[in-house]
């Protein structure tokens, strides 16, 4: 059990003026970074790690945590207002957030997202505090077999959810993404697949440039193509949801908080899968399932609660096992080591204060995020009033520079453009973008896990189907695929009769 006095000490420190100021600026900076397309939590954390190198260790960690919490939340602002997820974690948020904004319910959507993020973070923090060692042990038991199914399951879920009318197109997009992820050097023999002798292709396609292209450029092209001026949302009404609305979504918040945290703590999975899985669970259990993807407040709350809960979730294996739960938490892990903290199973014995300090810093950051999110909502909504002919070129410049900034190589800008043009063409034919990008994210994990699993089992497929978690994920994946094939085969048979 956590020590009450140690927790109290941690909160006393976190609420001191010095630390409060650090959390304030870092969280707001995180929100801004999360909002800007092309700037992600990972990139922000990496840049801030270099900028906080000279700071005292816990001050630096506090700043990084504030930015992490703020950036994952900040992505929801652009996802709702412009249908451009500011971070990969908010891709699921745009599914219902943007339709709500188009229905003149942007303020309500922003308010609900803020509340969802706050409670999501709180659920994650409670789980971090009380169950970190147990959950970390559980995450450790995952092997290649489970990761293979997890990656495949993620793409199948994404394909199904983002192409509600035609899941086949979602899966085709997912397959395309997984195939594109195969480009470049593989990890066993360092063989450059599908590189055709082009040096830049040996490194594969960068995730962030691809994401900026598939979500940013596609939206810019789609939006500017429309000759009619877009409808400006009527932003009337309450920003902060009524207590009854929050109470109505209490079940979704609780479930998504737990699901998001669990997804966060699984190494390498992270905030985006936390949001997708929370969204899938909420949809499965919803009475208004048909509204998902068309402006469901339940879907929005689930996605935002899920991705925010995954932040503390992803920190659990960082602290207790020294394994990152997500890409941003990998940067955090490196920062902890730089600042002399040794994460791992011994942390509760050697640096328990650091664990409680992290908990307190996340709680304070979540409160600041909520207050800042509410106060900054009105200026953010002004983005919708700016003529798109003036807003979109500025966004495209940020997309281009953001894609370039990650590795300072022009190839990333071309990747962004390529994915943008491909995405625009596919979008015109009703193919969703999210599974394509998710395939690109999970392709490496899928390949690595499949081949490592095969090596471990000496070529046998048995462990892929008999280990309990593998069996569960395999069954869920097959069920999802079979549910599509049944109506197809039925129609084919009926036509023959």
């Amino acid at each position, binding site marked *: 059990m956590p020590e009450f006095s140690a927790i109290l000490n941690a909160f006393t420190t976190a609420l001191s003026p010095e630390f409060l100021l650090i959390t304030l600026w870092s969280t707001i900076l995180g929100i801004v970074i999360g909002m800007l397309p092309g700037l992600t939590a990972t990139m922000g954390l990496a*840049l801030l790690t*270099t900028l906080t190198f000279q700071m005292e260790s816990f001050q630096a960690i506090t700043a990084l945590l504030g930015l992490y919490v703020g950036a994952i939340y900040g992505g929801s602002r652009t996802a709702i207002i412009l249908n451009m997820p500011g971070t990969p974690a908010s891709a699921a948020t745009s599914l219902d957030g943007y339709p709500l904004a188009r229905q003149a319910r942007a303020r309500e959507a922003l308010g609900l997202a803020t509340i969802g993020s706050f409670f999501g973070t709180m659920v994650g923090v409670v789980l971090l505090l009380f169950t970190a060692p147990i959950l970390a042990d559980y995450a450790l038991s995952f092997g290649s077999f489970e990761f293979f199914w997890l990656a495949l399951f993620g793409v199948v879920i994404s394909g199904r959810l983002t192409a509600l009318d035609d899941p*086949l*197109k979602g*899966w*085709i997009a997912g*397959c*395309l993404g*997984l*195939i594109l992820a*195969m480009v470049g050097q*593989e990890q*066993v*023999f360092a*063989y450059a*697949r*599908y590189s055709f002798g082009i040096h830049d292709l040996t490194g594969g396609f960068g995730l962030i440039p691809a994401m900026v292209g598939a979500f940013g*450029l596609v939206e*810019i*092209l789609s939006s*500017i*193509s*429309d*000759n*009619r*001026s877009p409808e400006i949302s009527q932003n009337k009404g309450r920003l902060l949801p009524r207590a009854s609305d929050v109470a109505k979504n209490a079940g979704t918040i609780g479930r998504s908080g737990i699901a998001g945290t669990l997804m966060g703590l699984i190494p390498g999975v992270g905030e985006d899968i936390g949001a997708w899985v929370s969204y899938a669970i909420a949809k499965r259990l919803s009475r208004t399932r048909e509204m998902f993807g068309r402006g469901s407040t339940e879907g929005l709350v689930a996605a935002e609660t899920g991705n925010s809960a995954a932040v503390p979730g992803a920190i659990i294996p960082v602290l207790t096992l020294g394994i990152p739960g997500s890409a941003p938490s990998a940067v955090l892990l490196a920062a902890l080591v730089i600042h002399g903290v040794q994460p791992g199973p011994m942390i509760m014995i050697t640096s328990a204060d650091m664990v409680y300090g992290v908990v307190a810093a996340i709680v304070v950051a979540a409160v600041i995020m909520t207050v800042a999110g509410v106060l900054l909502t009105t200026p953010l909504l002004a983005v919708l009033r700016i*003529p798109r*002919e*003036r807003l*979109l*070129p*500025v966004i*495209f*410049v940020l997309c*281009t*520079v953001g894609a*370039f*900034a990650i590795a*300072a190589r*022009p190839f990333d*800008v*071309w990747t*962004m*453009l390529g994915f*943008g*043009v491909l995405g*625009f063409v596919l979008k*015109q*034919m009703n193919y969703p973008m999210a599974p394509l990008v998710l395939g690109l994210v999970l392709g490496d994990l*899928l*390949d690595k896990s*499949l*081949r490592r699993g*095969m*090596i471990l089992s000496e*070529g046998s497929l048995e462990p892929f189907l008999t280990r309990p978690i593998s069996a569960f994920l395999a069954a869920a994946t097959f069920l999802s695929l079979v549910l599509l094939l049944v109506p*197809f085969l039925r*129609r*084919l048979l009926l*036509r023959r009769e």
Partner: protein
Amino acid sequence: MTNHALDRVSGFIFVVLGLGVMAGAWAMPRFEAQGAPAYQSPGLTPGILGLALALCGLILALRPMQADGAERTYWTTVIGTPANRNRAIAALALTLIYGAVLFGNVPFVWATFAFVFAFVVTFELVLKPEGSTRRPVPSLIAASSLALITSLGSQYLFQTLFLVQLP
């Protein structure tokens, strides 16, 4: 072209692409000389994914027409409307010229200024939206100001604050 016909065409394209991916996977070295079994081959996963894409493409191409197939097409919104089509082509041209040609070959501030100015002028004055009443002079002033602020502002943000060396 109807939705169904378009799906059929795209389905066959994916079949060809999937088969191409499989062929590429088959042609990859298997490192048998180093004692690697077949399941360690670099082509294993791409081969399976190529097969999956080809199968999905085949289902898409062969599936019976759906109830909502009708006569409309997915393309109608953009390609089927001349005004929208022209705007899409112009946007594609401008973004590709900036991203693939100007960025990296022309100093960042000049490239960005030219792109933002051209974008605003093109879509506010040349290919103006339906019902737009914008006059040329205010639009030109706005385009110049926005281009200046964006080029200098983004350079300051990335180069000075985020320490990114821009071209």
